[in-house]
C-alpha cells in the first residue's frame, strides 16, 4: 500500500474493474450463465463500455421496478417509521462538552505534528488523521450513522466559549447572530458562500500537494482555523450553516443517515435515507446548488485523474494557459453544466407530470434524492482507502511524534471491488426510491407521480454511466500540478 495521497483513491477503484464487472454481471442475474466467471478473468473479456452500459441498465431497471410499488400508505409506513432514542438533556450537554474538548485537543495535535512531525505521509499523524481518519472515515459516519459534526466541530469552541462567558441564554443553539461587531450575512446570499467554499476546497485539494505534504496541510488547517474562528465570531451560528463548506457537507450527508434530530431536538432512529422524504431543503438560495455541487465534485475528483483528462489538458497547458486556470475553469464549467442539466430536468418534469408546480419548487423538492448518490460514491471511493490505512493511523496515533518506521497497511481482498460497486449502485437505487416517494407526496394520484420521474431517470442513467466510466479509467496523476 504505502499510499498516502488521498486522490489516489481513484486508482484502487480502477484496479478493481475486473471485480466490478463481476458485480455488475451479478446484479443483472447473468451469473448463472457465466458461473465460472471469477473476478480475475472478467477484465480481459468484458469491455469497459459494457460495464458502463450495465450500470445504466441497473439504474433504469430499478426505476421500472419502483413503478410497481404504488401503495402510497405502505410507502409512508416505510418512510415514516421511527424509533425514539432517549437523550436526556444533561447527558447530551455533558457529552457535547467532553467531545468538543477532545476534538480541540486533536486539532492542536494535528497542527503540531503537521508542522514538526515526520515528512513521510504514512508516518505523519496529521496527514493520516485528516485524510484517513477524518475525510474518509469520519465523513462515512455522517451518512451511515448521523451528523455529529455540530457536537464535534472543534472550530465551534471559540464561539461557544464566548457565548458561555456572556452568561445565561448563551446556549449553543442559534439565537444571537454576531458576537463581535455587528456583521450579518445578507439573507439573499443563502448558502452560496458554502457552494463557493466547497468548490474552492476541492480545487485546492486537486491542484496542491496538500494530500502528501504535512507542512502544507498544517498550513491549510491553520488558515482554515483562523478564517473559521474569525468568521464564526463575526456572524455567529450562520457561519456554520451558510458559509463553512465542511459543516455544510456533513449536514447534507447527515440527511441520509438513520439517526436524525427531530425539530424538537429529540433523537430518532429511521431507515437509512427515509428522512430525505420528509425534510425538505431549507428555503434558502443556493441549497439546491450545494447538493448538485457535492455530486459534481465527486465526479471532478475522479475525472482529473483519468488519462483522457491528461490528454485533453496537455495541449492547452503547452499553448501557454496556466494549469491552475484550466483546473479551475473546468471545475466551474462542470458545476454550471450539472446545475443546468438539473434545472432543465426540473423544467421537463412540469410537462411529463402535467402540473402547474413551478420548476423552482420541483428543483428544491427533489434535490434531497441526489444525496444518497453522493454518499454512495463517497463510500465506494473511500472505504477501501480507510480500511487500508486505518492500521497505520492507529499505530501512528499511539506515538505521533516518534512513529514506527513502517506502519502496517491492510491489503484488501479482490472481491472488495464488487462491494464498492454495490455501494455506488445502492446509492442510486436508494435515490430512486427517495425520488419516487417524494413524487408521490408532490403529485396527486399515481401515474402523474411516476411520469414526473422520467426526466430525472434519464439524467440519472447518464450520470451513472459517466461516473462508472470515470471509475473504470486507469489512474493517471493529475498533470501539471
Amino acid at each position, binding site marked *: 500500500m504505502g499510499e498516502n495521497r488521498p486522490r489516489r483513491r481513484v486508482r484502487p477503484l480502477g484496479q478493481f474493474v475486473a471485480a466490478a464487472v463481476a458485480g455488475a454481471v451479478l446484479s*443483472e442475474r*447473468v451469473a448463472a450463465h457465466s458461473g465460472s466467471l471469477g473476478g480475475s478473468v472478467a477484465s480481459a473479456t468484458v469491455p469497459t463500455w*459494457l460495464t458502463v452500459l*450495465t450500470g445504466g441498465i441497473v439504474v433504469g431497471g430499478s426505476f*421500472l421496478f419502483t413503478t410497481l410499488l404504488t401503495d402510497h400508505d405502505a410507502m409512508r409506513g416505510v418512510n415514516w417509521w421511527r424509533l425514539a432514542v432517549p437523550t436526556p438533556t444533561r447527558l447530551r450537554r455533558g457529552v457535547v462538552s467532553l467531545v468538543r474538548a477532545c476534538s480541540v485537543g486533536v486539532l492542536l495535535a494535528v497542527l503540531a505534528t503537521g508542522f514538526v512531525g515526520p515528512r513521510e505521509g504514512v508516518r505523519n499523524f496529521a496527514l493520516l488523521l485528516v485524510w484517513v481518519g477524518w475525510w474518509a472515515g469520519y465523513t462515512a459516519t455522517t451518512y451511515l450513522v448521523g451528523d455529529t459534526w455540530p457536537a464535534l466541530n472543534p472550530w465551534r469552541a471559540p464561539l461557544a466559549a464566548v457565548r458561555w462567558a456572556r452568561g445565561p441564554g448563551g446556549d449553543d443553539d442559534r439565537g444571537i447572530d454576531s458576537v463581535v461587531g455587528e456583521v450579518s450575512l445578507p439573507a439573499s446570499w443563502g448558502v452560496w458562500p458554502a457552494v463557493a467554499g466547497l468548490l474552492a476546497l476541492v480545487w485546492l485539494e486537486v491542484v496542491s500537494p496538500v494530500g502528501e505534504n504535512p507542512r502544507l496541510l498544517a498550513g491549510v488547517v491553520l488558515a482554515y482555523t483562523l478564517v473559521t474562528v474569525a468568521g464564526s465570531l463575526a456572524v455567529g451560528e450562520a457561519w456554520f450553516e451558510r458559509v463553512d463548506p465542511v459543516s455544510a457537507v456533513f449536514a447534507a450527508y447527515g440527511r441520509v443517515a438513520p439517526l436524525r434530530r427531530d425539530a424538537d431536538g429529540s433523537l430518532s432512529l429511521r431507515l437509512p435515507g427515509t428522512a430525505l422524504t420528509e425534510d*425538505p431543503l431549507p428555503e434558502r438560495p443556493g441549497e439546491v446548488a450545494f447538493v448538485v455541487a457535492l455530486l459534481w465534485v465527486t465526479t471532478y475528483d475522479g475525472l482529473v485523474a483519468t488519462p483522457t483528462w491528461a490528454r485533453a489538458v496537455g495541449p492547452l497547458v503547452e499553448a501557454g494557459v496556466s494549469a491552475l486556470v484550466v483546473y479551475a475553469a473546468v471545475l466551474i464549467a462542470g458545476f454550471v453544466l450539472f446545475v443546468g442539466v438539473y434545472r432543465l430536468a426540473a423544467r421537463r418534469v412540469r410537462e411529463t407530470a*402535467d402540473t402547474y408546480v*413551478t420548476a*423552482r419548487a420541483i428543483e428544491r423538492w427533489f434535490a434531497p434524492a441526489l444525496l444518497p448518490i453522493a454518499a454512495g460514491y463517497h463510500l465506494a471511493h473511500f472505504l477501501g482507502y480507510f480500511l487500508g490505512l486505518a492500521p497505520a493511523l492507529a499505530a501512528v496515533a499511539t506515538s505521533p511524534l516518534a512513529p514506527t518506521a513502517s506502519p502496517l497497511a491492510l491489503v484488501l481482498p479482490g472481491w472488495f471491488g464488487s462491494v464498492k460497486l454495490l455501494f455506488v449502485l445502492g446509492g442510486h437505487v436508494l435515490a430512486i426510491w427517495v425520488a419516487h416517494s417524494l413524487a408521490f407526496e408532490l403529485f396527486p*394520484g399515481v401515474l402523474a407521480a411516476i411520469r414526473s420521474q422520467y426526466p430525472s431517470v434519464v439524467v440519472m442513467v447518464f450520470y451513472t454511466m459517466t461516473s462508472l466510466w470515470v471509475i473504470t479509467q486507469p489512474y493517471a496523476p493529475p498533470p501539471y500540478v
Partner: protein
Amino acid sequence: MPGETTPPHADRAPALRPSRDTAVPADEVPAATCPHCECPFRSEHARDLHVGERHDPTPSERERYEAALETERDDLWLFHAKAVVALGVTYAATVILYMVVLGSFF
C-alpha cells in the same frame, strides 16, 4: 384508499404552498382549481385526486375522488403491463448482450 373515511392527511409530508410553488402561464386558464387550497391543476382528474388525498372531501367530492381513483387504476394496469414487458425485454437483451460479448452466443 377509497374505503377509508378520513383521508391520509399529509401530517409529516413536506408542504407545498400553492401561492408560491405553482404558476399558471399567462396564456392558460387552469382546467380545475382546488376549492380548499386554491391549487391550480391542468386537469379535473388531478384536482379530484388531490382533494381526496390532501383535504377533507365533501360527499360529492369523495364521489369524484373515487371515480378518479377508478380511472387511475385502469390506466395504472396498462402502465404496469408496459413496465413489466420493458423489464423483461431489458433483462433478456442484457443476457444476450453479455453472451455475445463473452463469446458464448455464436
